[in-house]
């Protein structure tokens, strides 16, 4: 059971965890990314490449399922404009044992950062707007998965 969703609407990590817990495994891991209010940031806008995002996310989930014995994986990525504290992304994994769930969860979020066609634009209280620059350590984090 794997699910990939790209949506403007909010999502509920607790509800997503419930679905993963129901798969009969002994281990469920999750990661939730949220908008941080650094440096007077008030809004974050996620732009996507709609024709590609669902395919890219599905490919990442399939790769995780090849690498680890998962019972399920859920990836949700919001697009559009979000405010400080809003959830941006959710990754959840279920497996019989914890290593597969934990490693696949870390793999998925590392790969989302470097392989999913989303771009973040920040808007600040003083009116500044800027596109977020890719971080070299994100490439490094993805590279450790080979």
């Amino acid at each position: 059971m794997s699910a990939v969703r790209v949506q403007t609407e909010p999502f509920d990590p607790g509800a997503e965890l419930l679905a993963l817990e129901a798969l009969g495994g002994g281990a469920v891991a999750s990661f939730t990314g949220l908008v941080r209010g650094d440096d007077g940031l008030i809004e974050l806008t996620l732009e996507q490449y709609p024709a590609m995002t669902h395919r890219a996310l599905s490919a990442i989930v399939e790769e995780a399922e090849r690498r680890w014995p998962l019972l399920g994986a859920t990836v949700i990525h919001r697009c559009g404009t979000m405010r400080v504290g809003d959830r941006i992304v959710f990754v959840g994994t279920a497996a019989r044992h914890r290593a597969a769930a934990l490693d696949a969860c870390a793999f998925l979020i590392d790969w989302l950062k470097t392989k999913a066609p989303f771009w973040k634009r920040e808007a600040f209280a003083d009116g500044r707007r800027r596109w977020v620059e890719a971080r070299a350590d994100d490439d490094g984090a993805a590279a450790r998965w080979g």
Partner: protein
Amino acid sequence: MALDIVYFAWVREAVGRDGERVDPPARVATIAALLDWLETRGGGYAEALADRSRLRAALDQTFVPLDTPLGDARELAIFPPVTGG
């Protein structure tokens, strides 16, 4: 051959449009060559496409390096390194 180009993030903003259909001359065989050709339009194109180290591409919705041949692809996307997640 006609090719649809789509732009994202600051590339889109600099170019001033979401996308366009182009029909480059036959000698334009790779993504990099297409970028050279677009760059000669000057203005926002020259600004957006000057620094290739800041650009990434996808051909028919698959990430590819800039030296990839255009082949018979239908859609080229030009954008900065992704920053999702």
